[in-house]
Structures are given as structure tokens and as C-alpha cells.
């Protein structure tokens, strides 16, 4: 095996020169002659009947080319299809989700009409000339009220409950009856907004001669988007080209098929002009999917020594007003991961998905797993607090042992590999945990409140085996050795910041023995690249990279045959060694991959029966998910006068198996931690009772500035997996999953002297200050 030089090296990213010089092409940078610009008219109400739409003033505007309403699309043009939701739930309620509202709006920001004009400015002017009359209906925003009864988001359903999924394993009732201690807590995992710095962006054009639709979109899933456009628009899929050029962050929010993508495509076909739509940040807050928003009611049973024996759990998940692509699937992932890295066998759980008059929730970095990690890691700390045990000891007592892998959990997942204790011990050593606890006691004596929070997370990613996914879970790679020796790699994943143009080239450079500069990694264009599933669920390298490894194997096998024929040797006696082809044990005669590629191109010196050309397309179907894990330790100080949290230090020791480029992996962890920490301390999407979005701009919604996050200290351990041929696990979401509970546990630990057991996120100063005030009765907070 190779893996000698490039893999494992901290090389600078190959995508960066264009990005740092302003020469990259994001969707808004795509220039096409004759482009016209779209603006959407959106609902100002959380729930209302549309009584009339008057487009005459907008249509009379000389800058305007066209105005279309829901009526126009649904009746005149027969675009009746609903937006897709991918799921395998037999009883899921799937009310229609039209691309433009027909007679009722169910969420603020729902698109009602589209206006197309000669500039973005005139389009927005004209959108204001569309007069829509509404009759406001009662809205429901609170998920528990919505679950209990009317008003209904979709009157025809007669309920707001989209689905209920019960689950039971072991004998939880018996375990609870025999428990020494039961901790019960309602944990709200608040709604947050993904906020990629590039909002949703798209430009569609239609070549009427070729009958070809081309859609540039800031998407994580160009091929899946193409498939869904074909279905919703009723077009042959081979007449659609979807392109994800440079994409300015996704975080799951661009793993979707949005109404605007369909409408803009359709309008481009009507007008035979390129139509560009770049949403504003305010529109993005309203109409891009949100994340989290679950209420997790849990009861956990334990023995006096800290052994966890059972979990009862009810997950009430807010779906929003409609299903987007994966809306109902997300909370089911929470249930699957309810175990965390602990070995208890008895679980009773129920997931309830509920419609409300809010934007749809869907995949946001971690997507269902952060919620699980949050409640189980909080629960472990609550058990420790109740039993007056160190949270480290409770974790150690309940960890799935290193020797127990592969380990099948009560919820039916098979964790591939893990060594939770080693990773935790490494983190405890780096942090000097014992010293920290001493420091904490000393500071408390001075009236200063230091908190130490641990999170020992495990997560499920590398999505995933097709049988366990709502749609295909495999991915693809093509490698072509071009006649002049350069190498083209086409990957089915669609990176947008994750750096696979670099890491995939590192792998190929080593295995095929070529300089990295000779390798070009192409992605994100359905007319160039074979079908691929895309980038999400920390699958890019774990699945896409594994497909690449298979393609390498095929190239090497054929190159060996070509070289053996040239040398009149038996192919069995020829091998790849250090990236070159040679006769086994005889390094004097070698052939490079490009040389073999040239022979394959010339075609006249090939062994009989061997096709010309040296290229390969392979697909990797993962036999299982992968399960990265780690220990995060956060230290905070809470100011008793103001409730202000200062994050004193942050340490993450992660294990995602083998690292291709440690610098890139660390970058993923840094960004993930910042997002998870920010959920714990700052972020919250708030709707009022009528469904008005109160956090609709970056002035009202807090994503952190540089000053608001600390330095992140990182370490890692390496526990490879056998799930894929690279031995790697995903690392895109681990930081987010691990960090939120570490921060929350630290803050609540700081407030332990005040009898605080739990406070819901975001842990804002006013909440903490209130919890630190002397109380007339028992001092525990909500």
C-alpha cells in the first residue's frame, strides 16, 4: 500500500488561490447575456387566506417582463406537483407544498408571486406593486399546543401531528422500578438558523432549441436537485443540467429542493431568458430551513454507583408548516442516537412530529444527532449531580468498552469502532482536569463561578447505507488518465468549503504516483460528473472518498495488465509500489501511471481483449454508517453580577479515524465548535404567537463575531474503521455535535452552588443572572 507522502500532510488547499483573490465564481457571479431578475412577493402573515392578488400595477411597470401567481402556475400552467419529501414512514402526513401559495399561506415568508424585471432593483420595486389581500387565520407556533389541537396548520388533516413513531427495547419499566435514582427533565433544544454567509442563490436559463434547462444553484446536491426538478417540472431528466458552482456555505440548509428553485426554472422556460434570483438575508431567515426545535422530555434511571439502566424519552419535534426534503427524518435520527456512547439496554421512546406556522425545520449541521447528544450528555451530568459523583466517573462507568466493538445498540445501530475512554483520558490529561477542579473550588471560595463541562459524544455519519437512507446513500468517482498524462477526477460529492479538491488529489497523488498539480478534481456539474448523491451528513470523504479509492483500484489493476504485457510478464508478478508499476521485487524496471495511460490511449500495444483507455467509474455503497467520537472540555466563568459567560478555554479531542489532511480536519472541527457553542450561548429563532418572525435579520439573530468565541485547543486520537477502504470517519459535524453540551454543562456546573440543575438554551446572561439570585423557596431553576 502507498499512503506514504501526501496523505496525512498539511498541504495548503488547492481551491484557495481563486477564493483569496476574488476570482471564484459563486452563483451571483455567473454572467449571462440577457439575464433578467426575479423578486418574490412573500406572505407577511403566519397563517392567512389569500382573498385576492392584483398584479396589474406590477405588470404595467415598463421594467417588468412577467408576474406569476400561484393561480397562474397551478391552473394555467398545470404545475401542480408538490415539493418533495424523502422518507420511508408509512403513516407520514404529507400535505401539499406548492411552489407558490395557492389560496392559503401557512408561514411568514411563503412565496405568493414572482415578479421578473430588468434589474434586481426594478424587480423589487415592482414586487411592492403586487397587491395581495389576506384574511388572517389563527396561527399556532407552540409545538405542544399544536400537538394538542386546533387551530390546524392544514385544516384538511384535522390534526397538526405529522407522524408518531414509538420505539421500545429491553424492559424499561422493570429498570425504572428497580432504579435507585430517576432523573427527570424537560429539555428544549431551541430553533436555530443555519446562516451560510451566501444566501440562497440561483440562475436558470433555457435553451429552447436544445430544450435544455440549466440551473445554477447554491446547492449541496446538484444531482438530487436535477432529479427532483425533472419530477416537479415534468421534464426529461436528461434535458436538465444542475450546476453548483462555488457555494458559500451550506451547513445542511442547501441540502434541499426549494420552491424558488422550481419557480425560477419554470419562469426561465416561459421567458426564454436567464432568470437570476438572489435572496436577501431577511428572506433567507424567513424561507431557508431552520434547524433543531425539539422538546425532549426524558427520564433516566440509574443505580447508586452511577450505572445508567434505562431511558424514557419523548421527542416532540417542530416540523414547521410544510415538509422540506428531510424534515420528518431529522428527529428520527435523534431517537436512534439516544444512547450516546453508553451501554444501557432499556429504552422507551416516542417521536412526534408536529406542524406549526413556522418555517420548516430540516438538516442543519448535525441534523438530529446534536439534539440526542445534548440531552444524553446533560442527563449524565444530572445523574452525577444527583448522586454527588464526578461526571467523569459516571461517563467512565457507562462507556461502551473498547473491546465491545462492533457494538449493536438497543436502537439498532451498529457502532463500527470506538475507544471512548482513551479519548476522554487524553482530554482530561491535556486539560489537567484534577487541577481545574481544585481551581474551581478555590475560586468558588472567592465568590467566582468557574464551570467545567464535558461532552463525550459519539455521532452517526458517513450517510449512509442505502437501505437505511430515505434515498440513495452511495456515491461515485471517476478517474481519467488523459493522453498527455494529467489526471481528471470527477466526484459525485459536491464540496462547498470542505476541501475535497485537495484531499481527493492527495489520495490520488499517492496511489497513482503523480504530482498533485497534475490532478484536477471536478464536482458540482451534472453534465460533467456522473450521478452522485452530494455533500451532507459528513459523507464527502467517508463515502465519496471511498468511491475514489475503488476507482483507483480499478485503474491500478488495468495499468498493471498494460505494463505486464509491455514487459511480457505475468500480471500476477507485477504490482504498484510507491505509486509506480514494477515487476515484484525488481525496482529496476518501472512504469508510471501516465505512461500506462498513454499506452492505453494509443491502443496498439495492449494485451488481446483489453479495451483502450485508462479510466474508471466506481460507486461505493457503504455497508454501515461510521461513528466518530470524542471528548470536549469547556471551561467558563459566569459573572455573578451580570450573568455574563466568559468561555475561558475550550478543548476538543476528536477521533475520526485516519486523517487525509489534518489541517482541513481541524478547520472542520473549529467551525463546528463555534456553531455548537453559539447555539448554547447566543442563537435562537423566535416567532411570536401570530407567527411573526422576530429574529429576521442579522441585527436580531446572533451568529458569533470573532470576539465572542475563544481559542480552540485541539487534540485527536486515531481509531480507524473498517466500514470503508480508507479507514476514515466523517468530521464535518462532530464539532457541532460535541460542543453544545460541553458548553451548557460548563455553564450549569458553574451555577451548581445555586442549586441549578438545568437551564434551557440559549444560556443568555439574563437567565443566568436570574438563576443566581437568592430564591425564597427551593433554588432549582426551571
Amino acid at each position, binding site marked *: 500500500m502507498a499512503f506514504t507522502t501526501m496523505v496525512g500532510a498539511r498541504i495548503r488547499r488547492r481551491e484557495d488561490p481563486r477564493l483569496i483573490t476574488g476570482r471564484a465564481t459563486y452563483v451571483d457571479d455567473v454572467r449571462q447575456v440577457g439575464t433578467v431578475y426575479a423578486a418574490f412577493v412573500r406572505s407577511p402573515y403566519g397563517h392567512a387566506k389569500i382573498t385576492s392578488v392584483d398584479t396589474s400595477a406590477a405588470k404595467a411597470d415598463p421594467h417588468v417582463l412577467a408576474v406569476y401567481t400561484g393561480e397562474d402556475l397551478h391552473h394555467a400552467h398545470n404545475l401542480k406537483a408538490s415539493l418533495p419529501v424523502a422518507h420511508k414512514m408509512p403513516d407520514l402526513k404529507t400535505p401539499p407544498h406548492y411552489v407558490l401559495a395557492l389560496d392559503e399561506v401557512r408561514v411568514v415568508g411563503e412565496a405568493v408571486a414572482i415578479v421578473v424585471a430588468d434589474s434586481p432593483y426594478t424587480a423589487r420595486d415592482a414586487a411592492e406593486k403586487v397587491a395581495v389581500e389576506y384574511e388572517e387565520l389563527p396561527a399556532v407556533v407552540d409545538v405542544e399546543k399544536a400537538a394538542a389541537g386546533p387551530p390546524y396548520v392544514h385544516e384538511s388533516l384535522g390534526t397538526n401531528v405529522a407522524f408518531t413513531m414509538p420505539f421500545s427495547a429491553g424492559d424499561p419499566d422493570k429498570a425504572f422500578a428497580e432504579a435507585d435514582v430517576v432523573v427527570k427533565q424537560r429539555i428544549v433544544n431551541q430553533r436555530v438558523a443555519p446562516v451560510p454567509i451566501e444566501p440562497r442563490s440561483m440562475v436558470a436559463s433555457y435553451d429552447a432549441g436544445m430544450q435544455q434547462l440549466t440551473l445554477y444553484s447554491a446547492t449541496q446536491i446538484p444531482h438530487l436537485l436535477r432529479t427532483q426538478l425533472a419530477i416537479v417540472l415534468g421534464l426529461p431528466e436528461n434535458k436538465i443540467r444542475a450546476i453548483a458552482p462555488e457555494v458559500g456555505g451550506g451547513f445542511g440548509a442547501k441540502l434541499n429542493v426549494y420552491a424558488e428553485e422550481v419557480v425560477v426554472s419554470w419562469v426561465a422556460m416561459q421567458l426564454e431568458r436567464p432568470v437570476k434570483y438572489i435572496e436577501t438575508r431577511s428572506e433567507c431567515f424567513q424561507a431557508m430551513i431552520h434547524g433543531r426545535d425539539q422538546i425532549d422530555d426524558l427520564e433516566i434511571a440509574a443505580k447508586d454507583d452511577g450505572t445508567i439502566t434505562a431511558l424514557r424519552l419523548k421527542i416532540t419535534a417542530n416540523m414547521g408548516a410544510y415538509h422540506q426534503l428531510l424534515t420528518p427524518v431529522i428527529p428520527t435520527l435523534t431517537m436512534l442516537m439516544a444512547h450516546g456512547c453508553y451501554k444501557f439496554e432499556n429504552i422507551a421512546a416516542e417521536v412526534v412530529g408536529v406542524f406549526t406556522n413556522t418555517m420548516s425545520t430540516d438538516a442543519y449541521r448535525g441534523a438530529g444527532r446534536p439534539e440526542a447528544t445534548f440531552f444524553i450528555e446533560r442527563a449524565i451530568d444530572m445523574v452525577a449531580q444527583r448522586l454527588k459523583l464526578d461526571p467523569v466517573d459516571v461517563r467512565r462507568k457507562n462507556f461502551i468498552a473498547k473491546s465491545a466493538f462492533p457494538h449493536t445498540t438497543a436502537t439498532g445501530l451498529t457502532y463500527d469502532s470506538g475507544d471512548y475512554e482513551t479519548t476522554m483520558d487524553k482530554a482530561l490529561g491535556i486539560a489537567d482536569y484534577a487541577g481545574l477542579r481544585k481551581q474551581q473550588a478555590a475560586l468558588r471560595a472567592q465568590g467566582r463561578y468557574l464551570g467545567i463541562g464535558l461532552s463525550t459524544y459519539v455521532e452517526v455519519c458517513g450517510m449512509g447505507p442505502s437501505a437505511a437512507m430515505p434515498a440513495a446513500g452511495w456515491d461515485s468517482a471517476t478517474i481519467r488518465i488523459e493522453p498527455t498524462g494529467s489526471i481528471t477526477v470527477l466526484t459525485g460529492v459536491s464540496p462547498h468549503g470542505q476541501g475535497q479538491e485537495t484531499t481527493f488529489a492527495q489520495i490520488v497523488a499517492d496511489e497513482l504516483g503523480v504530482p498533485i498539480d497534475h490532478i484536477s478534481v471536478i464536482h458540482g456539474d451534472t453534465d460533467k460528473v456522473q450521478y452522485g448523491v452530494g455533500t451532507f451528513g459528513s459523507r464527502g470523504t467517508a463515502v465519496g472518498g471511498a468511491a475514489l479509492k475503488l476507482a483507483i483500484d480499478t485503474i491500478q489493476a488495468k495499468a498493471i495488465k498494460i505494463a505486464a504485457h509491455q514487459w511480457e510478464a505475468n500480471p500476477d508478478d507485477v504490482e504498484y509500489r510507491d505509486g509506480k508499476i514494477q515487476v515484484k521485487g525488481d525496482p529496476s524496471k518501472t512504469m508510471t501511471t501516465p505512461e500506462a495511460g498513454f499506452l492505453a490511449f494509443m491502443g496498439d500495444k495492449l494485451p488481446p481483449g483489453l479495451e483502450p483507455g485508462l479510466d474508471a467509474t466506481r460507486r461505493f455503497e457503504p455497508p454501515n454508517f461510521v461513528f466518530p467520537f470524542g471528548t470536549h472540555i469547556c471551561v467558563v466563568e459566569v459573572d455573578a453580577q451580570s450573568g455574563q459567560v466568559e468561555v475561558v478555554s475550550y478543548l476538543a479531542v476528536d477521533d475520526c479515524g485516519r486523517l487525509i489532511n*489534518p489541517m482541513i480536519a481541524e478547520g472542520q472541527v473549529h467551525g463546528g465548535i463555534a456553531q455548537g457553542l453559539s447555539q448554547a450561548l447566543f442563537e435562537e429563532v423566535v416567532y411570536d404567537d401570530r407567527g411573526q418572525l422576530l429574529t429576521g435579520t442579522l441585527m436580531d439573530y446572533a451568529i458569533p463575531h470573532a470576539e465572542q468565541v475563544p481559542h480552540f485547543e485541539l487534540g485527536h486520537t486515531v481509531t480507524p474503521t473498517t466500514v470503508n477502504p480508507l479507514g476514515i470517519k466523517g468530521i464535518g459535524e462532530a464539532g457541532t455535535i460535541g460542543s453544545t453540551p460541553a458548553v451548557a454543562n460548563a455553564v450549569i456546573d458553574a451555577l451548581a452552588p445555586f442549586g441549578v440543575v438545568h437551564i434551557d438554551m440559549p444560556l443568555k446572561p439574563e437567565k443566568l443572572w436570574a438563576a443566581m439570585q437568592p430564591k425564597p423557596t427551593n433554588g432549582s431553576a426551571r
Partner: protein
Amino acid sequence: MQIDLTVNGKQTMLDVEPRLLLVHALRDSLNLTGTHVGCDTSSCGACTVLLDGVSVKSCTVFAVQAAGHEVTTIEGIGTAAELHPMQEAFWSAHGLQCGYCTTGMIVSAVDLLKRNPDPTDDQIRAGLEGNLCRCTGYENIVKAVRAAGAAMRSGTARHSVNDLMPVHPPDVEPPPSGEGIILQQLQETKA
């Protein structure tokens, strides 16, 4: 109305609507698409450019306000043939992922070092508070600005992206963190 301004050292005449924002004049009239738009409240800083050498959010400046002034965009900060030390440092420190905030971040950081050539990490974080990044957690951005400051103070020559990409030695294990590092930081913070 007609305005004259200098963009990246080049005298430029533009015919603009009075309400046209500078960022749109740069992007759409001059095709300088390296300056990005990330919000509508002057919060994110993706559109940062230099106006007479001082960083401004070009979404909050009308094009007509730039008449008679000098504008420098990311395209004028450095090129692939001659990278600005700040660009070089963002590249080497992995100070970017999706790249969307990066151009505005680099422009802001260039302005920051002009005002304070040797900032502490805290000063770097404070100095970049007008620029939002959702990918990096700012860790490597701070590292990049620190490195750029050192390079600029020592007068390191500009590099080209065509210089062979420096390949750091294989490094399976990151630099050792050392025992007790968190406690040490805590004591430093509280000293």
C-alpha cells in the same frame, strides 16, 4: 448620473442611478465580483472594500458617494501572480473554507494591520468584529492575521500561487498540546 472614481488604481467613469449601492456598481458595472453581499443590514462585512484606504462596507455606501475617491477591492489587494501577504497568510493558515466571507475579511484585516501592525490576538478579534464567518470559528483567521502581521513587519516578498505549493512534512499528530494547557490559559486570563 455620471461619476468619476478610481478603482484599483484605474480611473473609471460610471453612469449610475443615485440609489445604486457601491457594492452593486463594483459587481455589476465593473464586474469586480470578488466583493460579495451576505446581508441587508450592514452586519456581515462580506462586501468590505477600502475607500481612500479605509475599510467600509460597500453595501452601505452609495456609488455616488464614492465619486472622486479611491476604491480598492479584493482584486486590487493582490493577484494570483503577486499575492498580498494577507492572502498568502489566509491560504497557509487555512483561514477560509467556503470562501464567501473571505474577500471582505482579508480587506478588513489589511486595514486592521495598517492601523495596528502588531496586534494581539484579542485585538485581532476585536478588529474583525464587523466581519462574520460561519465556517472557520475564526480560529485560523486570527492565526492568519497574526502571521500576515509578522510577514509584513519583516518585509517578506510577495509570492505567486504558481510557486510550488509548500508541502508541510506529513504530520499525523498535531503539535503536542502539553499537559495542563487549559489551566495555564486560565491563569493567564485571570492574571
